[in-house]
């Protein structure tokens, strides 16, 4: 049996869903996107073109939830289905779109550059615990207007794992799509074997901004999965009670699924989010608050009840350096998400709310993820009888290290951490330099980067990706992209 967290009673789930359907009619959803308003209107939803408020009938939303696939796969660049959205599968990717990086040498936040993100992508490739890449940071050495597509360009040059990404503009989405098509080989191949998911954020409460709504529609029409990132901030942009915040989340996601399915029936879309229990002292959006985790687990349960694949932003910290708070918060969120069966848990490496990425935190988080996945594997009988034969054979001798049974099972029963986790003796620890976890993590970063081998990517593909990116950058005043770090 797999350990599972159900944070809501089934009655509460039902009531949340019922109230969410009601919100879709009254007060309805604000949709600041003409194509979506058209789609909703044509399908029979009452639409007020003046206020841009659409009222979505329950039946329409229900139909959409029916036609949206309950599961799909993401493929790696070797064509293997490595990520499963659906059921209780649990996978992890790094947090995305950080504005800063915690510099390894100075431990100060600074603007990320091309080389930083390339190293980050390499690290993610090297960490087996992490299932997918993400466009994790915005590089400061290209024009801001192409910051979103440039990170995808860099990642595609160094990765094999699938990627969670997103666009910050309507026009850049198309360039990003062209890059993915180039990598997949054809538009059709990309539909058959998706390698990327786009995050799309409704604005709380109950609003679809033009940009994210268009991104979602374009994804649907082009067969690219999208991932709803609904973020009720309880007490600020959503009611303060956790259950009510989950109602709002459900209504926002239902409206997204409806628009998506009207754009293209059967388009893959994920029930996801990044809510926060708003901090009433600092006015911030803590990712490390226990109530934030509770909202996430609750909406994941609601999404599952509706047959949707799920996502959550969890396993992050609000700490500003890689310290005790950082470990505490990241572990708490990651474990809760794993137990709740969230299909894709985004957040590894991320700290200072959703502002900053850290290499050291990423490798520490990989250990947390390894342990969380071990927890999910559960306590299994392994043999029949479980213990009787073996224990009768040994009697009262404590001689298990010498048993073939131990050799056979130990590395299936135990998650073996890297040297980031210290389990040595005090003396041993001192001999190795009395290093803190953060210092050991820094060592591991160096070691992993030294062992990274770039994937084989044809010259033509590299050139095509570079041309697509350069064309976009030219429109914003940059003729020549920063050089791509050595790929050999």
């Amino acid at each position: 049996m797999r350990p599972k967290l159900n944070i809501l009673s089934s009655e509460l789930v039902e009531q949340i869903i019922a109230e969410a359907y009601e919100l879709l009619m009254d007060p309805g959803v604000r949709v600041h996107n003409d194509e979506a308003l058209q789609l909703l209107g044509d399908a029979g939803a009452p639409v007020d073109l003046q206020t841009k408020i659409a009222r979505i009938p329950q039946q329409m939303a229900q139909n959409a939830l029916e036609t949206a696939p309950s599961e799909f796969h993401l493929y790696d660049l070797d064509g293997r289905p490595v990520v499963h959205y659906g059921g209780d599968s649990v996978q992890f990717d790094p947090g995305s779109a950080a504005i800063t990086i915690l510099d390894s040498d100075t431990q100060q936040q600074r603007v990320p550059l091309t080389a930083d993100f390339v190293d980050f992508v390499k690290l993610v490739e090297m960490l087996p615990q992490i299932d997918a890449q993400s466009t994790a940071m915005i590089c400061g050495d290209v024009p801001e207007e192409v910051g979103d597509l440039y990170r995808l360009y860099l990642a595609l040059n160094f990765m094999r794992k699938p990627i969670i990404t997103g666009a910050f503009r309507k026009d850049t989405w198309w360039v990003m799509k062209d890059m993915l098509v180039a990598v997949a080989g054809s538009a059709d191949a990309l539909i058959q074997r998706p390698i990327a998911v786009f995050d799309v954020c409704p604005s709380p409460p109950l609003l679809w901004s033009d940009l994210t709504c268009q991104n979602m529609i374009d994804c649907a029409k082009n067969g690219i999965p999208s991932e709803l990132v609904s973020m009720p901030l309880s007490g600020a942009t959503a009611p303060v009670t956790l259950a009510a915040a989950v109602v709002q989340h459900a209504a926002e996601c239902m409206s997204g699924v409806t628009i998506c399915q009207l754009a293209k029936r059967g388009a893959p879309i994920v029930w996801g989010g990044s809510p926060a229990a708003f901090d009433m002292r600092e006015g911030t959006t803590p990712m490390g608050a226990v109530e934030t985790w509770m909202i996430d687990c609750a909406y994941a349960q609601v999404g599952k009840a509706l047959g949707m694949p799920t996502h959550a932003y969890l396993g992050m910290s609000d700490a500003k350096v890689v310290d005790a708070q950082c470990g505490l918060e990241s572990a708490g969120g990651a474990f809760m998400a794993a137990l709740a069966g969230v299909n894709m848990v985004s957040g590894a490496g991320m700290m200072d709310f959703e502002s900053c990425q850290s290499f050291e935190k990423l490798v520490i988080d990989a250990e947390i993820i390894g342990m969380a996945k071990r927890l999910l594997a559960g306590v299994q009988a392994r043999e029949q009888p479980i213990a009787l034969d073996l224990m009768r054979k040994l009697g009262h001798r404590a001689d298990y290290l010498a048993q073939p049974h131990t050799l056979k099972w130990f590395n299936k029963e135990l998650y073996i951490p890297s040297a980031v986790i210290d389990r040595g003796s005090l003396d041993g620890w001192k001999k190795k330099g009395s290093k803190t976890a953060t210092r050991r993590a820094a060592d591991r970063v160096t070691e992993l980067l030294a062992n990274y081998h770039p994937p084989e990517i044809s010259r033509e593909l590299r050139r095509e990706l570079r041309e697509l990116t350069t064309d976009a950058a030219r429109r914003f005043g940059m003729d020549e992209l920063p050089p791509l770090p050595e790929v050999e």
Partner: protein
Amino acid sequence: MTLELLKRITDSLVDGDPDATVEGTRLALDAGLAPLTIISDGLVPGMEVVGDRFQTGEYFLPHLIIAASGMQQAMELLEPELKQRHEVVQRLGTVVIGTVQGDIHEIGKTLVATLLSAAGFQVYDLGVNVSAAEFVSKVRETNAGLLGLSALLTTTMTAQRQVIDALREAGIRDRVKVMVGGAPVSQEWTETIGADGYAEDAVGAVALAKNLVS
């Protein structure tokens, strides 16, 4: 009687009861109290207590925001009276604030606007996704001495520079001090685009604004 009425207004702010603030203000006006007295001896002391308690950690944001809303509703009631008497409230200054074009993040901007208003500034909040032209025309119209520009995306930070350029083109750059803020904004960026100041959070924004007008 007078003291009692004023204390009632003060307490209503401290207790976070905007309806009582409005009611108390109406009673005070009916009793013939001067609007400026109601403000200085009823409303302002209340806001001060709330502000102090927030600083010491006893009060939280909801206390602060609800008190600010009570204060604002009371001011709306007092405004016509003040006009009639040709009196004006001493403001620390006038601020136009908004989130720049292409950006719809509003929470931080609204917090800053609320605290500026509670601190005694006249605030015009233009909302989100505000174009450079709208900022320029509102600054002109209100003769504001301060302009606050919020941007939460690395892609929209550049719009802060565009607003500053637009102020310059309109020939009013030297009439207004420009404050910038939002998660990706830094001191360095502030200098790069030639803004006059930057603050990390809402409390810092109030200090910055006071500094810039003094």
